[in-house]
């Protein structure tokens, strides 16, 4: 693609344009967390115009959904936002379950809440680590990855996988929760709040951190709503919006937690919002762990959910269902749904269209990173080039989530 910005220059900018230069940042720039390319027109150190260029990680996942049976397609959702795989599993499973009209038993729902909040912690920890490293605070990375490692081990204990867990399946969970999971979770959640204090000790009152983040990356709330920004960025601008509260799913309405907001609307307040979200997630995990209801961990729906191993070996009917589901998949009634959940990055929506067959007719993902990135030019134009990294870092995008 030619390095050329669209020419819609205002007449008064003509003077500046003549002595400006175009700087290409990315797609292999380490601070763009993937393959984001920013074309920036500079006047000295001031950015006159910025144009994001995405699509380097486009893998055609939406097309792939159309040729995979519903249950197999769960594995694709992991790979959309690879830092929050379980949130994506959840959004997709909820959408298909809504089409099927499936009732999910309480234990599976609470397990889903607990693990989705672990995913939020995982994602926010990676965000904090890399965001701090971008701005120059090296040691925060080591602290954050210590806890993240423990979370990945918990995922491994549940699903056998560290990152691409695919642990939520249509109708419940993929496997029975492992024995002794609550000791492991309890051990983690007992120390975690003190670990958040450690990060805050390193950053919250750190003058360099404050100097690099306060008053940077400001963008008005009206602009953000108009440009499709969601999630912690809106909450850092004072809008109390969270799909877990406004459109509760998976029994989130039964949990007691706060939605943190700030009003400063800069990079620093987005940091404070996310740190507080980590504390709230820890609260939710503790409630889910303490109040985990007994009972089945998958729905009672033999057409959709695989039978127990034991039943399969002893009962003819279960064996037939198993064979049918594995070889043919299951049919989903005709219709369309748009299921929204609150992913760590913002509003994640799954639009699933079914034509009554075993494969989805169309799946569209409304991913938060795509919407958030669209506001980049509005955020960085007119500011210093040195603040671009802090600004885009505070958006917390994942390019897999953007390009799909």
């Amino acid at each position: 693609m030619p390095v050329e910005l669209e020419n819609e220059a205002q007449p008064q900018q003509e003077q500046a344009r003549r002595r400006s230069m175009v700087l290409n940042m990315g797609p292999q720039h380490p601070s763009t967390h993937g393959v984001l390319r920013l074309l920036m027109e500079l006047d000295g150190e001031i950015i006159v115009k910025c144009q994001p260029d995405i699509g380097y990680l486009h893998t055609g996942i939406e097309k792939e959904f159309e040729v995979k049976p519903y249950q197999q397609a769960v594995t694709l959702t992991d790979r959309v936002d690879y830092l929050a795989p379980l949130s994506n599993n959840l959004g997709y499973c909820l959408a298909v379950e809504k089409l099927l009209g499936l009732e999910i038993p309480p234990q599976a729902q609470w397990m889903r809440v607990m693990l989705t909040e672990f995913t939020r912690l995982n994602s926010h920890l990676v965000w904090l680590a890399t965001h701090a490293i971008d701005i120059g605070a090296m040691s925060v990375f080591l602290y954050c990855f210590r806890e993240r490692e423990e979370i990945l081990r918990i995922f491994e204990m549940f699903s056998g996988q560290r990152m691409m867990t695919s642990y939520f399946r249509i109708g419940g969970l993929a496997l029975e929760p492992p024995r002794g999971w609550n000791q492991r979770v309890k051990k983690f959640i007992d120390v975690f709040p003190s670990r958040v204090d450690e990060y805050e000790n390193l950053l919250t009152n750190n003058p360099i951190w404050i100097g690099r983040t306060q008053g940077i990356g400001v963008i008005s709330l009206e602009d953000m709503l108009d440009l499709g920004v969601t999630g912690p960025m809106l909450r850092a601008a004072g809008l109390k919006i969270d799909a877990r509260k406004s459109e509760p799913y998976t029994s989130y309405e039964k949990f007691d937690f706060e939605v943190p907001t700030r009003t400063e609307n800069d990079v620093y307040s987005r940091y404070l919002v996310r740190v507080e979200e980590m504390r709230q997630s820890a609260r939710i995990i503790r409630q889910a762990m303490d109040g985990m209801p007994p009972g089945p961990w998958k729905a009672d729906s033999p057409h959709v959910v695989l039978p127990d191993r034991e039943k399969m070996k002893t009962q003819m009917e279960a064996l037939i269902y198993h064979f049918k589901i594995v070889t043919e998949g299951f049919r989903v009634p005709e219709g369309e749904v748009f299921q929204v959940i609150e992913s760590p990055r913002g509003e994640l929506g799954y639009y699933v269209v079914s034509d009554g067959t075993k494969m989805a007719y169309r799946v569209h993902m409304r991913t938060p990173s795509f919407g958030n990135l669209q506001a980049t030019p509005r955020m960085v134009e007119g500011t210093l080039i040195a603040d671009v990294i802090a600004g885009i870092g505070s958006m917390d995008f994942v390019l897999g989530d953007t390009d799909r």
Partner: protein
Amino acid sequence: MLPENLRGLDVTGVGAVAAAVEAFDADAITAGKFDRNELTLEIAPPKIVSVCGFLKYDQSFVRLSTVTGVDRYPAEPRFEVVYHLHSIERNQRLRLKCRLPGADPVIESVTSVWRSANWYERETFDLFGIRFINHPNLRRIMMPEDWDGHPLRKDYPITGSRI
């Protein structure tokens, strides 16, 4: 005219939106359904910008969540352009749908109403080949500039051919 199946809807909930759109422009809604707690209104394509403007400024649908397409090949009208709207104030979501012919799928862009439509419409153009007129920058966004074809169309192959 408001379709018969939407007449009895609860007027305090999403039903009020359907009635308001009908009162705004009686010819705008061509069909609609209320299924699994989600309201879908099918809008006549030439009316989309005026209806969206009405929904944003009069009915508080300040957010455009996403724009995408569905290909009904080989049926006609082949394409559906699907808009998902969100009102924070009313805590409601609404789906608008426009059906476009396969031969020349063209619809007016809603970027004048919500700026967020910019990239979503570019994506729909890129992957479905639906053109949005009055769009400020209608270029491919996912695929390379010199790519042939539109991958999410149903007649586009899922795997490549061997060279």
